[in-house]
């Protein structure tokens, strides 16, 4: 059951010190207008969970550039120099997670798993501080679930029950983040009446979505 709210109301749901998941890959699949509104509001000390810190002028990168994060949990920062700069200044903490592990940790958070065992990173620096578990002769790292206070999604289409449809490569982390936050906000290009999306076509069931914003 989703409630339609304004961009301003959506931004007010995100408070200083909260953790936010931001969907998207190089900004594709990121609710760009909601990020802009969050930049304008200047909410601080956020923890961000995303594939990467994107670009300085796109996606979650704008929040990094505006120094709104105290920590980011990402797989890559290579195209947003502000990330490295703030890290070297000591004002930003970075947790690097292999991209596939990041996806599984988010999914585990949303789906009530206590963790997953992955072969990714066994024998590398990524193993530090993690439990290695052997199952049937193979070694795996125990990777813990990730959850957030708020998830920020971008859909092509939503119905008033919160069902979402994505387009092309904009799907990426949207469906897994939808389930992994206390509050899930989706910005949709188009919001239609309940019943206007065939239940077979839904990519994120409305049960995961709390708020819709037209944008």
């Amino acid at each position, binding site marked *: 059951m989703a409630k339609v709210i304004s961009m301003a109301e959506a931004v007010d749901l995100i408070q200083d010190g909260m953790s936010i998941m931001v969907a998207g890959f190089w900004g594709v699949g990121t609710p760009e207008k909601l990020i802009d509104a969050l930049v304008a509001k200047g909410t601080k000390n956020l923890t961000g969970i995303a594939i990467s810190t994107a670009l300085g002028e796109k996606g979650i990168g704008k929040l990094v550039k505006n120094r709104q994060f105290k920590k980011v949990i990402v797989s890559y920062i290579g195209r947003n120099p502000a990330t490295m700069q703030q890290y070297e200044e000591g004002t930003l903490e970075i947790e690097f997670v292999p991209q596939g592990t990041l996806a599984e940790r988010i999914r585990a958070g949303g789906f009530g798993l206590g963790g997953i065992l992955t072969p990714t990173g066994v024998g590398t620096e990524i193993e530090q501080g993690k439990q290695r578990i052997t199952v049937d002769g193979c070694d795996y790292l125990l990777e813990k679930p990730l959850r957030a206070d708020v998830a920020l999604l971008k859909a092509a289409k939503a119905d008033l029950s919160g069902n979402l449809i994505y387009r092309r490569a904009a799907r990426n982390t949207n469906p897994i983040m939808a389930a992994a936050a206390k509050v899930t906000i989706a910005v949709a290009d188009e919001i239609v009446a309940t019943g206007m999306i065939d239940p077979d076509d839904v990519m994120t069931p409305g*049960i*995961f979505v709390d708020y819709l914003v037209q944008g």
Partner: protein
Amino acid sequence: MDYKELIARRVAQEFKDGDFVNLGIGIPTLVGNYIPAGVRVFFHSENGFTHIGPMPKNEDERDPELINASDQHVTILPGGAFFDSAVSFGIIRGGHLDATVLGALEVDEEGNLANWKIPGKKTVGIGGGMDLVAGAKRVIIAMEHTSKGVPKIVKKCQIPLTGVRCVDLIVTELAVIEITGRGLMLKEVAPGVTVDRVLAATDARLEIAPDLKTMTV
């Protein structure tokens, strides 16, 4: 009103507008018939969708690929969505259901639940029950208070458990009992039922709520 309807009507009062709920088989299934007016409750089906709708009126309206988890032909209401089994149980395990309503063989003072193995009989399986009690925000047991006079609410479950410390509320034809951090609390008695009768039918310590009420359905 028969006792099953009483139980179902009382359970149906437990939901808030917009809740997502999974109903087990037996008495729990009846709960869907008594949702109060003005409260929208959406039912989840383990086999992969939300917004279970009524059964089709006749054979012609049956969709061969649209059944519920009990193999009954149903419909889907506007706003529902289909998904695969991993997502369906991700919804369950991940705490996205506001409540599940299940039957029980035994419930004990710690909120332990036994409902998958009948003593002396071979089990026919687990289905989704263990996941539901591990994951739903609230676990509501809807059952007869006793099994032919033998109490089902006990000090400690004697038969194999479905889940540990998982039950939140028990609704029977005699009483509404809450599982608190300290044990079982009798919150309501059915119309015409005395506290003594509830106590006599219960093989566990029951604290009586200071504001004990009569069930209204």
